């Protein structure tokens, strides 16, 4: 397949050569990963007692990270799914990144579940003896379906780029990479018929991805929502988690746009316009997210139900700073930065995204842990680690390891496929021809 020469020379250098900086960054992340693995071995050897989880707070950092990473996967569904169906033009440079975020975070998320499971050697029981009345079974089915769907969609979007790279004679890459492009491109040559098949398949999968992403995140929310625990037994949890997921995914997208733009010198392709557009998306979603959060806590606070009042009390005393950060700062600050044109610069929008992303992680934390610390029957114990949750170094290490694996996988993929979709950038012409 032919492609604009300039596009190729701008977007492929990372595939051709690897800089020292890349290696150093990669090995730093690898180091974090190794520390995390060491922690995991400790946990498997000594049992879960090495974490901060105890009989009341049975779900801690691992579940928070699981929800967080699964939430990140929504960005792909939104950007490439929704915007694909709306044929928005400006999104083209960021589609590939969004899809990669989706797939990579979907791969990492389930690992945090594995860390939380007491008997890893019996994991296959989930597939051998599933009970479909259990929300965890729904989650297993949904995540597997989502993973496969996202992989298919990602691959569909790679085909054209692989075809371009395969046909680009001056590509200076190792022979194994060339062979890889040849196999994976399925001999695609961009004929009308082939294009039509591919385009239809992509549209169908885009619709599926949107539907599946909503289902996956709702099911995840219902794991909490169907229990009787105060703070979790909320009817708003389904939509609330979906919105929070889109929020976090969009925030991460901005951050990655900034990183890759800086590192791979893509200033021409990812412009301020993209930052502003995704930033506006972030603000709109922040408004929805803030609305849902406010609605949830207002109804809890206003009513006199004892267990709700105890929980709200705990949030405003023990968890005060975290609560303010997650639900006020995390929503208002990004909204202010992006809403006023005066404040909109690429760095400021990125900072807003970082705040939003961190605030969302904290939001997951204050959804999961304070509820478990206020059960119906009060915790009556003398041991401090049984009364309140305090994460240990292993849980921190594994969280960092998860982030590191995310970064490493991203870096590895950028070595095989261009981080901006070359074919998408060219697509404008094809669409006009077919019309």
């Amino acid at each position, binding site marked *: 397949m032919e492609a604009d020469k300039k596009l190729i020379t701008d977007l492929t250098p990372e595939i051709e050569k690897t800089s020292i900086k890349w290696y150093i960054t990669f090995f730093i992340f690898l180091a974090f990963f190794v520390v995390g693995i060491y922690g995991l071995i400790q946990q498997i050897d000594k049992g879960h007692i090495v974490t901060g989880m105890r009989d009341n707070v049975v779900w801690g950092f691992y579940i928070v990270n699981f929800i967080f990473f699964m939430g990140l996967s929504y960005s792909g569904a939104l950007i490439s799914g929704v915007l694909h169906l709306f044929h928005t033009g400006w999104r083209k440079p960021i589609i590939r990144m969004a899809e990669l975020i989706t797939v990579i975070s979907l791969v990492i998320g389930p690992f945090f579940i594995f860390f939380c499971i007491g008997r890893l050697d019996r994991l296959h029981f989930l597939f051998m003896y599933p009970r479909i*009345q259990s929300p965890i079974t729904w989650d297993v089915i949904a995540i597997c379906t989502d993973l496969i769907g996202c992989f*298919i969609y990602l691959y569909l979007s790679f085909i054209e780029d692989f075809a371009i790279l395969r046909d680009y004679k001056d590509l200076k890459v190792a022979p194994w990479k060339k062979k890889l492009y040849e196999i994976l491109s399925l001999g695609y040559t961009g004929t009308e018929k082939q294009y039509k*098949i591919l385009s*239809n*398949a992509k549209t169908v999968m885009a619709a599926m991805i949107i539907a599946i992403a909503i*289902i996956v995140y709702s099911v995840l929310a219902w794991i909490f929502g169907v229990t009787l625990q105060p703070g979790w037994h909320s009817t708003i949890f389904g939509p609330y988690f979906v919105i929070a997921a889109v929020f976090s995914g969009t925030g991460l997208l901005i951050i990655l746009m900034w990183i890759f733009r800086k590192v791979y010198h893509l200033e021409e392709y990812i412009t301020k316009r993209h930052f502003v557009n995704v930033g506006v998306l972030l603000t709109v979603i922040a408004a929805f997210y803030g609305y849902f959060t406010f609605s949830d806590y207002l109804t809890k606070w206003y009513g006199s139900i004892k267990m709700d009042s105890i929980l709200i009390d705990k949030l405003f005393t023990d968890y005060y700073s975290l609560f303010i950060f997650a639900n006020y700062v995390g929503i208002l600050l990004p909204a202010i930065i992006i809403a006023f044109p005066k404040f909109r610069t690429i760095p400021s929008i990125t900072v807003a995204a970082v705040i939003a992303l961190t605030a969302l992680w904290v939001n997951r934390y204050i959804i999961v842990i304070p509820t478990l610390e206020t059960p119906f029957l009060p915790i009556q114990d003398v041991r401090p680690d049984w009364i309140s949750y305090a994460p240990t170094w292993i849980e921190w290490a594994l969280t960092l390891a998860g982030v590191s694996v995310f970064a490493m996988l991203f870096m590895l993929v950028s070595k095989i496929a261009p981080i901006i979709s070359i074919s998408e950038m060219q697509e404008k012409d094809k669409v006009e021809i077919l019309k």
Partner: protein
Amino acid sequence: MTVMIKRAISISAIIAVMQIPVFNLYAQDQALKDAILNMTLTEVDSIKTVTVTAHTVEDGKEVPVSGETVSIFVPRMFSNLPVGELVLDDEGTASLEFPSDIPGGKEGNLEIVAAITDNSTYGNTENRQTIHWGVPTDYLPTSHRALWTQRAPRWMIYTLSVLLAGVWGHYFYAIISLFRIKRNADREKAKAEFRL
């Protein structure tokens, strides 16, 4: 010497006489009388009555046992459910009204026991009878489909199947598209090579 012998005889006589009450008590401890306990269960106008009579056989004659306590109970899984305590009158009989609301087995059968227990005179004796005086209690545990049973509610199974079929159906469409692209590409390649 005769004085000593006389004293010895009188002392041993006194000692021998002294033993008699002890012997008597001991004899009483050893020989518990066998009391025969009879229980009759009668129902008149749906009023259930338990009548007990107790007697011992002495010299071939029936002697009623009076003043002793007889407990009436229904044996249950871990212990005995007391129904009442009767004191036998001078004729050795007593009766009480049996409640009509005690649950029985599936057919409403109850085992009723009248017993004299740990009695100093008569030891232990009892009379057991089974009668259709209980409320029939048939317990069928939930075999319906619920969230907590082995079989899930039907609507859950249907919804899940429809959703999965729908989504995976689309996945198959996409995968088949991949094969179609490959086939088309191979055909195009063959055509191009043929032309050459």
